[in-house]
């Protein structure tokens, strides 16, 4: 298992190199010139050319790529062309905001989505189930910016309970996280419900009932653990894509997050910002997928044994001991 994780982490390196190449290629293919943007329309062609030379924009593709990637490995993500501030500092500052938003949004949607899904599944074909399906359909279909505006109107303007923008106090986080979570709650609830219904039809659930176990034990011990496996996949995907997709929420609630930073960078053709921003989000996504895979293996012994078997073949008993320490931990 440990071996597997190390292998997966090492595999991240070629993935990220590939991503960095792809990002650079896309930038080259996009029209627009940062030098022209910086100097404005009144600058002469010579001035623009001079600045291009100065910024190293005229260097070859691989020269620019190497400059970028070697910098990254030394912890230098370049300097923003517009603000002249180091990209890494700015990213780290803004990343905190996005991370809080995404983590609380996801946690919130998991805490609500999973119980709603279980409830709907265990009350199949009653009005409770129908109501849950209907509400989640609305929640999934509702654009998040619209929902954000609705809650701002109600809780911010009318009742004045919560600040309408900014996150200076913790109460400022409530609405952005709720706006973020709404669609995700519904997504997770629907996934949970359908997986739960699927599992409850399985023979081993009848077996569990035939042992005289209580409904609670059958649902939570036998069914849930099996049904939650595909849901974990969805949660991982949701978490990863929100990291890059929190832009709308950030703009509406004036949160200085990563999405806004990269968006501004894109508009200004601020190449270092775009490159580093995409690279960081891609890395996080890859790490999340890795974590999801490890959780899979921990929950499902069938997946776990695939790794163990490979280990046994390769390394013999030593690896089995490692396995056990990992399990014990």
């Amino acid at each position, binding site marked *: 298992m440990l071996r597997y994780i190390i292998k997966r982490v090492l595999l991240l390196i070629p993935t990220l190199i590939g991503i960095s190449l792809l990002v650079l290629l896309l930038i080259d293919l996009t029209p627009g010139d940062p030098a022209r943007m910086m100097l404005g329309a009144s600058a002469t062609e010579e001035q623009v050319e001079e600045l291009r030379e100065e910024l190293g924009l005229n260097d070859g593709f691989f020269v620019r790529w190497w400059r970028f990637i070697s910098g990254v490995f030394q912890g230098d993500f370049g300097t923003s062309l517009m603000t002249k501030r180091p990209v890494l500092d700015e990213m780290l500052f803004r990343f905190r905001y996005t991370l809080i938003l995404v983590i609380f949004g996801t946690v919130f949607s998991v805490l609500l989505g999973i119980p709603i899904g279980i409830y709907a599944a265990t009350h199949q074909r009653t009005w409770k189930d129908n109501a849950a399906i209907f509400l989640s359909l609305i929640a999934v279909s509702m654009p998040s910016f619209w929902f954000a505006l609705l809650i701002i109107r109600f809780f911010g303007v009318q009742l004045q309970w919560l600040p309408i923008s900014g996150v200076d106090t913790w109460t400022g986080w409530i609405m952005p996280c709720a706006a973020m979570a709404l669609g995700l709650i519904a997504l997770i609830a629907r996934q949970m419900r359908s997986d739960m219904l699927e599992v409850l039809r399985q*023979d081993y659930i009848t077996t569990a*009932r035939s*042992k005289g176990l209580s*409904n609670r034990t059958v649902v939570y011990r036998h069914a849930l653990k*099996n049904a939650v496996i595909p849901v974990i996949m969805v949660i991982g995907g949701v978490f990863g894509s929100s990291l890059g997709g929190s832009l709308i929420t950030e703009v509406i609630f004036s949160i200085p997050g990563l999405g806004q930073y990269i968006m501004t960078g894109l508009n200004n053709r601020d190449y270092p910002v775009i490159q580093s921003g995409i690279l960081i989000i891609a890395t996080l996504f890859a790490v999340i997928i890795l974590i999801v895979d490890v959780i899979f293996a921990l929950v499902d012994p069938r997946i776990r044994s695939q790794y163990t078997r490979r280990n046994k073949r390769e390394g013999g008993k030593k690896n089995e001991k490692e396995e056990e320490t990992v399990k014990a931990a």
Partner: protein
Amino acid sequence: MGENLLEIKNLSVEYHTDDAVVYAVNNISFEVKKGESIGLVGETGAGKTTIAKSVLGILPQLQAKIKSGEIYFEGNDLLKLSEKEMQKIRGNKIAMIFQDPMTALNPIETVGFQIAEAIKRHNKIKRQEARERAEDMLEMVGIPGERYRDYPHEFSGGMKQRVVIAMALACNPELLLADEPTTALDVTIQAQVLDMMRNLRQKLNTSVVLITHDFGVVADFCDSVAVTYAGEIVERGSVDRIFNNPKHPYTQGLFESIPRLDSNENRLKPIKGLMPDPTHLPEGCRFAERCPYATEECTAAPPEAYEIEPGHFVKCFKVKEGEK
């Protein structure tokens, strides 16, 4: 063999689907004595599994409806018990072995846990004690106790069925409902599993309802037989009587369709036709359409069960008239 352990009276079960009502079990009655082993024989879809699931109260709640009947177990009508009271009986006094060992075990729990869970549920004992007893159960069905911590996917089909059997027997049930316990297994493993069940039966004096479509298994294992057809029991009696003197045309047809090794026949002799659609059962005798002796009387109204000799019941007009 003395008193009745299980007594089913006029049981009828229906499944309600979106567009039809399936009449799965129709007015079935039979009883099982203490220590007796009865074979429930019939084609796929004859309602055998539904009978077993009704006894245990584990029919799919949304679709299945018990229309009528009583199921007496040790004198109590199981259908009148609350869910809580049923939970105390399930897995404890009545246990079930399922047809397909491949899907009957929870894939993400160890087999040991799944056995110990049943033991712990019905006995006030410590976790460690439940674990030891689960290991003993594994040993009893011929699986080393160390495999307690293994997961179902690490066992072969036959081994899984042993685990399922160990699970069913974990609390020494009075009644074992075995739903085609050997159907999914290789022939060699089948014999082993049957042998094992026979030994356990002798040791624990458990009554068994063995559901099967294999007369060979019945002859090998059972004291009496009930032949089911389209949700009814058409003939019922001791293994001796039924095998040597089958009276119902369906039972006769079943026996004739078994190929004999000592004859030169090249062709199989199936019963012509198909079982009636359980959503539209005929008004008269269910078997009339396929019966070589059917008369107008047969299609007009269903026959009753006639006791032609003590303990030998046949649901056919012919028997009443004393012909054939």
